[in-house]
């Protein structure tokens, strides 16, 4: 293992921002794994730290394949993490909306460029990502439909689902999208939790990456086989909206199977405690995403359902 400072930024008064990379093995740039691009991605940081721990052991035992190099960058935006912010603390910009970056541009464009230059030449790019809506997912691998995406490779993570998303204009500046444009096969891995650490889902994420690296011949590791993933397109998910606002009581969890008419959640009057709405499933299927916060706004997403196909 070789620890390297990949990017440094001086601040007026704070200690410098140092972005560290951990290299394992030597040779062809095989896989790059990136953790926290946002200041609230504590789980993503934690997953990377656990991965670095395992890879360090594997390297000691000669289990990184000959001629293959792996790079892990556990955190990019700990400057925000250390002070409890999500985006770049000075101007509230999101580093994951700045790729491929610009080395003569604004601060976060420069940070993005500084990182991207060094990660764009890897064959595989894996990012532990987070979603902007508050809620929980079924663990999955997500990729953008850029024309370069390869869902059968995404299957090798052994997570239950592979989700393909049609990029919207706003997605064109994410790391995942730009990795693909620069011919890196890019995958975003979503597990539960962002702001808090969830040990189970962290273990699942670490295993998924180790499984992928093993199956691509980058490491030698004994991993159990995982799931055979279902590939789903994001726009095929059925979104269930809240018809009213108030206190939110979740009744069903991500991954659970539901039948049409099942109560998914209850929305209560926040003063009187009475039921305002019992949100029901419009279709049979599996809950893919579920709202988590204790409050909900009208028309917020209660959950997203993978429709069951009747044969």
């Amino acid at each position, binding site marked *: 293992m070789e620890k390297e400072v990949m990017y440094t930024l001086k601040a*007026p008064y704070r200690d410098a921002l140092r972005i560290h990379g951990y290299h394992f093995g030597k040779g062809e740039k095989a896989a790059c794994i990136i953790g926290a691009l946002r200041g609230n991605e504590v789980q993503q940081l934690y997953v990377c730290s656990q991965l670095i721990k395992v890879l360090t052991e594997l390297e000691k035992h000669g289990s990184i394949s000959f001629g293959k190099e792996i790079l892990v960058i556990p955190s990019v935006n700990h400057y925000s993490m250390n002070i409890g912010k999500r985006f770049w603390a000075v101007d509230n910009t999101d580093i994951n909306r700045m790729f491929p970056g610009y080395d003569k541009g604004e601060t976060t464009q420069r940070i993005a460029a500084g990182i991207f230059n060094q990660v764009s030449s890897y064959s595989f790019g894996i990012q532990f990502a987070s979603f902007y809506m508050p809620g929980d997912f079924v663990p999955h691998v997500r990729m953008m439909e850029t024309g370069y995406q390869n869902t059968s490779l995404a299957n090798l993570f052994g997570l239950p689902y592979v989700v393909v998303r049609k990029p919207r204009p706003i997605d064109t500046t994410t790391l995942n999208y730009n990795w693909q444009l620069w011919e890196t096969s890019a995958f975003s891995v979503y597990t539960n939790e962002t702001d808090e650490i969830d040990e189970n889902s962290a273990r699942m994420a670490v295993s998924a990456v180790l499984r992928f690296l093993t199956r691509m011949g980058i490491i030698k590791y004994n991993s159990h086989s995982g799931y055979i993933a279902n590939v789903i397109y994001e726009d095929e998910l059925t979104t269930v909206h809240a018809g009213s606002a108030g206190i939110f009581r979740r009744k069903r969890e991500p991954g659970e199977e539901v039948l049409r008419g099942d109560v998914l959640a209850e929305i209560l009057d926040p003063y009187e405690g009475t039921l305002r709405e019992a949100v029901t499933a419009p279709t049979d299927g599996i809950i893919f995403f579920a709202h988590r916060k204790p409050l909900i706004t009208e028309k917020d997403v209660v959950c997203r359902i993978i429709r069951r196909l009747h044969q």
Partner: protein
Amino acid sequence: MIETVVEVALPVDEKLMIQKNRITPAGGQERKRRISIVTGTHGDELEGQYVCYEVQRIIREHPECLTGVVDIYPALNPLGIDSITRGIPQFDLDMNRIFPGSKEGVFTEYVAAEIVDDILGSDVCIDIHASNIYLREIPQVRISEETAERLVPLAMHLNVDFIWVHESATVLESTLAHSLNMMSVPTLVVEMGVGMRITKEYCRQLVTGIFHLMKELGIWNGEAEEVREPFISLNGEVDFVNADASGIFVPEVEIGTYLERGGHIGDILNPLTGEVENSLKASIAGTVFTVREYPIVYHGSLIARILGGTKQWKKK
């Protein structure tokens, strides 16, 4: 007449409401031309607030001169404005990246779609922005290349100092202005002043321009003052000056100043050591139309933008 464009219930005893004031001329049932003035997509940009007031004050003084419909939307992001938040507070989401929205979408997308729906049918829309809290901008209209042919002639009426025709960027396709322009409502994006402040002089300048445009479109038949002739820039003539050090920026130039090549823009200071970390010079001759307002800067922070070839810059 105050109308609610869209409303959504918030969790506890409050509604998110987007309102507009529709001002109509007396008489006649025939179709009237219509201008929509919108602002407040970014909750920390307030220059448009005074513009919305001033336009109404002038119409109120001479209601007989109004010959078309004026729709004023002062707060597209009311939760942001009232909480001094640039984006939509609950999501930390830039509202100008979710258009055209979707009626079946999450509440933010739903709100966006209803706003677009309400503005459709306007003969022109003015979307007033105020830079952000970091930069001060001279009154300008920003137009992407592909809409320039159609929009520049309209923008000429707005009494701004210049019109910036810039390259189109995919990420800007989700702005309100882009969405409306694609749906055939010519929409002009005005940037002026600075976030969290009101610059009366700029607001009045734009108000003069709005009445000039209204007169041109047959929405106003009262007096309309002469407007200044803006400088029209194409991308290549704009020089971006970014910080090459982190520290405290102190400007030497005022906005609107003409600088020779090598002219002094300002310095980035280190108050701990007492040293100048970075002295910033103009790399082209031209007029400074953007200047850093907020003193704390990092490597890369935008300090100034200079419009080259502006010897003939007209300033009243």
